[in-house]
């Protein structure tokens, strides 16, 4: 009468589609929450998932219902001291109007917001949605230098080591069946006649006729056997093709001024910018290398810890860092194999005579090789000549070169978005 079924191993996540529909519908709200989270959170836990809060009225599904007012009688349990005819003031919050909560009970569960969690992946997806590096579409195939061999079925020609034995023999078998059909049919026919004759008593059997049949059978048999067991025609080879693989490697250069004018807070802002870029690249490339180049009057390649936290003083010559970057690219990161991104952060200080050298280096040695070069200037003061010099570079290379100005930490994300905004015409 009863069937008992174990469903525990059945497909889980039946609600995934509905959940996605929900996220899709409230995309705007979730994006806003994500942006706020990026403002508020310390950079180290940006990668966690996030909590999203939506005002409940925005997601409610309206239905016809009674509003406040009119005559309303409700029954409650647990009477203690009331008798018929007692009158008293309405409880605060006007709960009597049909909500079922006639009495003031501080449940605190009224019009709260709708809060839910999105996973880390979803968080990052929302964070980077609509952002697109101009050349993010992985390097064009023509640039790709690496190839991968993949199997692509079978072919009738090829080198002996790629011979597929099972397929070849199967083809041979099929051919033999197809070509030998006529003879075998005839042989069967003749055998039947022969058996019929053999079944007769030995005295009556027509000897010559039987001999003739036997000869005919032997001849046909021979003919059938003459079909080759295997023919060139039967051979099958594994077909391998070479497909070009777009490069999925990226290198990101973090270039930062560490001269005396850069305070720790400016460095923190810069760090956030670098990390955002890193997270962003991480979502698009399988393998990312980081190169940290810091400079004051000299540039030096350092590790991450030293990059962000060691103290330096001195003047500023930006070109030294660009020079080093260009050298490293030439030595280690061929643009054919690598997608190269450079992010430079500075407070805008530079030795006056150097700025022209910088733009020269950028235009001649760097920008042609990189996917993207982003410059952020973190300062509250007026722009100095480096900025104006860079503006000219920007005009010359509008697709590869981007620059922005930041004054405090809260601005990073919007600026980041602005820098990497989807540029439909630019990306073409």
């Amino acid at each position, binding site marked *: 009468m009863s069937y*008992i079924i*174990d469903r525990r191993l059945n497909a889980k996540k039946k609600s995934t589609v509905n959940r996605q529909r929900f996220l899709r519908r409230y995309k705007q709200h979730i994006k806003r929450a994500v942006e706020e989270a990026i403002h508020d959170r310390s950079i180290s836990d940006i990668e966690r998932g996030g909590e999203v809060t939506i005002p409940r009225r925005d997601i409610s599904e*309206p239905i016809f219902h009674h509003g406040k007012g009119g005559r309303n009688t409700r029954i409650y349990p647990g009477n203690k001291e*009331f008798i018929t005819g007692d009158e008293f003031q309405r409880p605060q919050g006007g709960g009597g109007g049909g909500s079922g909560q006639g009495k003031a009970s501080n449940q605190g569960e009224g019009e709260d917001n709708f809060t839910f969690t999105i996973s880390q992946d979803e968080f990052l997806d929302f964070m980077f949605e609509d952002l697109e590096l101009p050349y993010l579409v992985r390097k064009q195939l023509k640039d790709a230098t690496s190839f991968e061999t993949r199997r692509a079925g079978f072919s009738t020609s090829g080198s002996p080591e790629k011979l597929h034995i099972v397929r070849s023999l199967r083809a041979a078998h099929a051919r033999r069946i197809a070509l030998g059909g006529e003879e075998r049919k005839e042989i069967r026919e003749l055998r039947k006649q022969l058996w019929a004759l053999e079944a007769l008593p030995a005295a009556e059997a027509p000897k010559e006729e039987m001999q003739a049949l036997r000869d005919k059978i032997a001849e046909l048999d021979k003919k059938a056997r003459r079909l080759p067991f295997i023919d060139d025609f039967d051979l099958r080879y594994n077909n391998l093709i070479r497909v070009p693989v777009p490069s999925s490697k990226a290198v990101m250069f973090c270039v930062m001024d560490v001269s005396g004018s850069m305070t720790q807070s400016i460095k923190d802002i810069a760090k956030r910018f670098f990390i955002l870029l890193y997270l962003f690249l991480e979502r698009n490339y399988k393998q990312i290398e980081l190169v940290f180049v810091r400079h004051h009057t000299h540039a030096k390649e350092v590790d991450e810890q030293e990059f962000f936290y060691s103290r330096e003083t001195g003047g500023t010559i930006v070109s030294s860092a660009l020079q080093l970057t260009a050298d490293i690219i030439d030595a280690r990161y061929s643009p054919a194999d690598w997608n190269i991104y450079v992010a430079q952060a500075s407070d805008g200080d530079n030795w006056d005579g150097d700025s022209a050298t910088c733009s020269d280096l950028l235009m001649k040695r760097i920008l042609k090789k990189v996917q993207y070069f982003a410059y952020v200037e973190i300062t509250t003061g007026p722009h100095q000549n480096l900025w104006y010099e860079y503006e000219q570079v920007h005009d010359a290379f509008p697709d590869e070169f981007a620059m922005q100005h930041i004054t405090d930490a809260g601005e990073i994300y919007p600026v980041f978005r602005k820098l990497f905004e989807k540029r439909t015409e630019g990306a073409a």
Partner: protein
Amino acid sequence: MSATKKRRPISTGSEWTFDLIEEYDREIGRVAKNFGLDTYPNQIEVITSEQMMDAYASIGMPLNYNHWSFGKQFVETEQNYKRGRMGLAYEIVINSNPCIAYLMEENTITMQALVIAHACYGHNSFFKGNYLFQTWTDASAIIDYLLFAKNYISQCEERYGFDEVESLLDSCHALMNYGVNRYKRPRPLTATEERERQMAREEYIQRHLNDLWNTIPRKEISPEEKVIRYPKEPEENLLYFIEKNAPLLEPWQREIIRIVRKIAQYFYPQKQTQVMNEGWATFWHYTLLHQLYDEGLVTDGFMMEFLHSHSSVIYQPPFDSPYFSGINPYTLGFHMMSDIRRICEKPTDEDREWFPDIAGSNWIETLDRAMRNYKDESFIMQFLSPRLMRELRLFAILDDAERPTLRVDAIHDEMGYRALREQLSAQYNLGNREPNIQVYNVNVRGDRSLTLRHYMHNNQPLGESTDEVLKHVHRLWGFDVLLESVTPDNKVSQAYHCPPKEISIELA
């Protein structure tokens, strides 16, 4: 008794196995049969808590079409569950044939037995026996229908786009409560019946009327009455009316409206029998498991655990408790069912006075009759006893917007019993809970605008989301929509328009 006491308990530990579930099910089924419970065959499915949340999100059904609101429900359940703010139900049971019941794997064997008794025999027999379910739902077809609906809607999404289908479903959901038939339509007449009736009418007219001799003065028909409305009779099933009459809908849109309507109709009896259904199931799990205990099939420890969850299920927080959120249907239902049994078995003088026809009768038959022929509203009206009102200490509060204070209208005393019972019954009347809105007229010859009328009950106005819902009606209807709140003396007290009507300034 001594013979039955010798029997060994089915289990002693708290872990469950499929064999044990099977054995409990067999024993409970046997006992239930002895009590005369008539059920659909059971399909008991063991699921994980995650799957339970999925089931929650698709209104308890094993499959359903996709819509963002189910995703919202899922996200909310998941969030609350993960934070420990709510536990999941121990079971979900579906009115289908076979009757599908979900058991959570986290439950102990005691809980599994409780759930089997509650869902697979309690709810199941209610689904099979109650007249509302029999009239309005088709247990053997629902799963197939949902499968059809799911496929159909996903095809529509492919063909006409997500957004299009989603907004249509939004609009349908907004009117879902107004997509049910409350009364069965009369069966259409057959041709012979029609002919017979027509002949009978003719004969009657022949005999009674001869216009030449008619001396009764003809009544003047006022011009107001001459206006023929469409539909002739007001229609309360808004979705049905829209499906059949909205001028601009495509066939697939009508089909989707129909799907939502059918599903609403399927759930309609559940909304009207919450107290009875839960009361019935709770009463039976209590009775069945006690019977097992009497037969020595379950241990004392089992009963302790069972009674612990049973009593928390039927706990009714008093009105001033922070946990109070209305009358607990389990409490009311369970007590009323037990009370009927008490009235049958040990009636007092009061019971004899109030319930002369059931006091002292066979309790199994009486309960069965009650289960089959009532819904919450009528069940309370018929069977709520003064004794139970005293036990629950019920009282009525009158909240009249025109008076500055609330008033205690009735309490559990001689003068208040009938008023209390009537009020509580009215509280479960869906017609009072939901505003009564009907299609009043369509301007067929003019701008095709649709007029809905809200017949006010106790002078209660419509809530603040009315304009939002009207937008949905407008989306479905395709032309102007007007909603009027009408007082009992036929005056329009408030009117809503969609699109909002511009105030026309007449120049003098």
